């Protein structure tokens, strides 16, 4: 396998757009990534597009908008991890030596509410209804309630995740909600599923994000900026787990593989982006990624460890909660943020001296993808 560099990133501002399609977001994000890389569209040899519920072949429709150069454009779907999947496939295309320059793209446009079920099949919908799976937020609410009982995690600590990530988003020009909120405001916002209020949850929205990957050798031709390389690309799905036959969480299994590939451990990171569709997930992920033991994650948020300026900043761009989560592009927005940070171009969000960063996404039904990016010194 060859060393692979990320030479360009670009994204559109996440948010709700009346008159802009996911395809237009894709074209704009790709053009931004190409400009950032100093490349022309005709130099891209293969492309992957991550999207969920955007109609048939969204990537190929973006291709039509950019110019029909005839390259293979592969559409991938892994729910929230669709963009991360596109990035991993583009990485593999270059790492294996089959292609020199690849595009990873993610696009998404959502309605105001999540669809009831992941499947349009009536039989699957009815099964979800039968079990009371009628509101996606209920899953996080039940997890939160259990965590509060098991570890004594307080609702204030959980709210502080939202406060922290909204504060980070203030300095991200591409964030959907660049606005500070207080613990009180989180508590007082609309109740969705006790104790989950709307500010404990990520919003729905639209957007696009893209990255250009190329072989390290090829990358040296472009620009004089610090070279950002892919130190790990790990992808696992959940192993069956029950009370009788327990298995580690998929995040723990995937992280172990990523740390092995990169030859490092959690505390070697300078910053981390994680999937936090709800506040409780970020605290769970401090533990599942190996930064602390189960039940200790609350301290990280209470003591400011995971805010910018803390010992291990998490979700420096605002995370799913405040940067936004249009599904398809989210994993690539994490790559965008990690690359900006490692280059030292993150402005007021900058984590001082950042050299290595991790991006973690979860897709529906136990998909986990982790990438570790490194600044080549």
């Amino acid at each position, binding site marked *: 396998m060859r060393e692979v560099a990320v030479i360009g990133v670009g994204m559109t501002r996440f948010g709700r757009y009346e008159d802009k399609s996911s395809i237009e977001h894709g074209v704009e994000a790709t053009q931004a990534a190409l400009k950032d890389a100093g490349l022309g569209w005709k130099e891209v040899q293969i492309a992957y597009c991550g999207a969920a519920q955007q109609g048939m072949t969204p990537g190929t429709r973006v291709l039509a908008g950019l110019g029909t150069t005839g390259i293979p454009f592969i559409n991938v779907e892994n729910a929230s991890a669709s963009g991360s999947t596109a990035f991993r496939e583009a990485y593999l295309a270059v790492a294996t030596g089959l292609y020199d320059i690849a595009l990873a793209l993610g696009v998404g446009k959502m309605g105001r509410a999540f669809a009831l079920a992941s499947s349009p099949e009536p039989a699957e919908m009815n*099964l979800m*209804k039968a079990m*009371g*799976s*009628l509101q996606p937020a*209920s899953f996080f609410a039940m997890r939160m*309630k*259990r965590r509060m009982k098991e570890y004594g995690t307080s609702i204030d600590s959980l709210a502080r995740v939202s406060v922290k990530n909204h504060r980070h988003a203030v300095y991200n020009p591409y964030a959907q909600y660049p606005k500070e909120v207080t613990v009180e405001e989180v508590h007082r916002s609309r109740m969705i599923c006790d104790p989950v209020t709307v500010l404990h949850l990520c919003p729905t929205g639209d957007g696009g994000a893209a990255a250009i990957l190329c072989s390290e050798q090829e990358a040296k031709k472009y620009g004089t900026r610090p070279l950002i390389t892919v130190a790990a690309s790990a992808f696992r799905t959940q192993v*069956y787990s*029950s009370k009788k036959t327990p298995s580690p969480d998929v995040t723990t299994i995937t992280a172990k593989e990523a740390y092995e590939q990169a030859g490092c451990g959690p505390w070697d990171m300078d910053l981390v982006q994680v999937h936090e569709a709800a506040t409780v997930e970020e605290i769970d992920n401090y533990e599942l990624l190996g930064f602390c033991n189960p039940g200790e994650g609350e301290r990280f948020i209470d003591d400011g460890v995971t805010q910018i300026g803390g010992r291990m900043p998490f979700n420096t761009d605002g995370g799913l909660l405040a940067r936004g989560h249009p599904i398809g592009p989210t994993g690539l927005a994490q790559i965008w943020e990690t690359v900006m940070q490692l280059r030292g171009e993150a402005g007021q969000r900058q984590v001082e001296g950042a050299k290595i960063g991790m991006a973690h996404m979860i897709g529906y039904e136990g998909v986990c993808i982790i990438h570790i990016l490194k600044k080549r010194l």
Partner: protein
Amino acid sequence: MESDKSAQSSETGERKRLPIVEGLFTMPSSPDERPQLIGSRCKACSEAFFPKRLICAHCYGQDVEEISLSGKGELYTYTIVRAPVLGYQGPIPFVVGQIELPEGLTIQSILTGCEPESLEIGMPMEITLGKLEEDEAGNEIITYMFTPAVQ
């Protein structure tokens, strides 16, 4: 699966009680008889599942048998759903929870017959049936639910 004897014949034009999914739970005709969840057990490794599976998720064995689950368990967690959701016509708010069954599995269920404020993690729960919603013809769509166990 036992047919639902409480369902009225369609010729009478009366409303029927219909299970939302066939083969997921029983609908006994007698009120004294407890409904049962229909699961499966792997004959090779004896792992139990709900809903039933054709292939064991633990050892991947394909020799599985249908079983009735005990219908009693402990409340693992719960929440009160207050926001409306797409494609659901039933009452809001409602309570949903997870129940740990003695067979070693945790299942999700709507909770009924209780004030949400009275619920506590760890409390004993038992199965019942309840109306989820009504279809266009006015038939009652029935699903299994859990309720605090009578001590």
